[in-house]
């Protein structure tokens, strides 16, 4: 039986609430910029480069990715923790989702920086 101190996890609910509110802004921005601004609704390669060449844009997109990945991973964890799990399983799930989250963010950051570099070279 874990001690009360070990069981304190109020941070994740509050974290979800905060990232959720941030996403209202960030996701709406992302959707509008990528799909409701250009003609045709989908950016061509050139249009992607034109957009991502801005350091501020890259920063916001990476911030968006981190926030959405956190929210997604914690959300999946919250759903799974509604099941009867023992401590070992809970630890395993938390670590697995952390790894998945890091992979997603890592991949996204790589892509963003690669495209940023391509945009700058063009």
């Amino acid at each position, binding site marked *: 039986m874990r001690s009360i101190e070990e069981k304190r*996890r*109020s941070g994740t609910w509050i974290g979800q609430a905060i990232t959720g509110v941030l996403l209202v802004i960030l996701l709406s921005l992302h959707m509008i910029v990528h799909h409701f601004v250009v003609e045709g609704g989908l950016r061509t390669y050139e249009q992607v480069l034109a957009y991502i060449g801005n350091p501020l844009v890259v920063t916001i997109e990476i911030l968006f990715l981190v926030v959405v990945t956190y929210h997604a991973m914690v959300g999946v964890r*919250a759903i799974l923790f*509604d099941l009867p799990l023992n401590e070992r399983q809970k630890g395993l799930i938390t670590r697995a989702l952390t790894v998945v989250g890091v992979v997603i963010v890592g991949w996204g950051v790589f892509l963003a920086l690669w495209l940023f570099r391509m945009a700058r070279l063009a």
Partner: protein
Amino acid sequence: MNDNGLFGQKKTITLKVWRYKPGAIDPPRYDTFQVEANAVTTVLDALEEIKATRDGTLLYRHSCHHASCGTCGMRVNGREQLGCVARLLEQGSDVVVVEPLAAAPLVADLVVDMTPFAAHFTPAGMRLVRTSEFNAEAETPAGVERFTRYEDCIECNLCLSACPVANTNPAFIGPAGLAAAYRALITGERSPAEVFAYVDHEDGVWRCHSAMECSAVCPSNVNPGHKIMALRRELISYKVKRFFKGG
């Protein structure tokens, strides 16, 4: 049954009752009974008539017969209700299915094991006997603006049965236990440190996903969903104050 024609036209209702007795009625089945119901005939009335005259082995819990003791909780057409006030003609169908509560281990027929429920409830500091009864006509003593009734909960377990989390995670304290914790906090019966230590963890106040079904089915005005959220607010405010005080 003679009702002196006082309660409107009688109607025949098909009652489907879930039956299960380990070793005797196993595998489980639904037994069908035709019952005569008037405007005030309740599910419990029908069950008692069946037990008295047709099948003496039917098992169910009952006590006060007026929604005060919380003993006769069951699911009627899929929804948690107290059998003693669930009127047969108000169920929206000529076929009424009666099943035991969810989120608690089955014992037999309509009886479930209330031990897990009590296990989450008792440490919360819930008084098992109400110490005050609300009386609208009573004069308040000097300095008291109004009476506030804290102990509405009749421990019927309907909220736990309706909760989507309690049905998959027995470690969750549950709506009744958390509502009792909130009451223990605001009546001052337990210290904030004690109450928060009990509820501040991932199977406590933070496991709730605000489905609010507990409040929807509560027959006694407890509104556990609201109390869980209020408990969160108190907890956050307590932690923020403690953080700034350096404690």
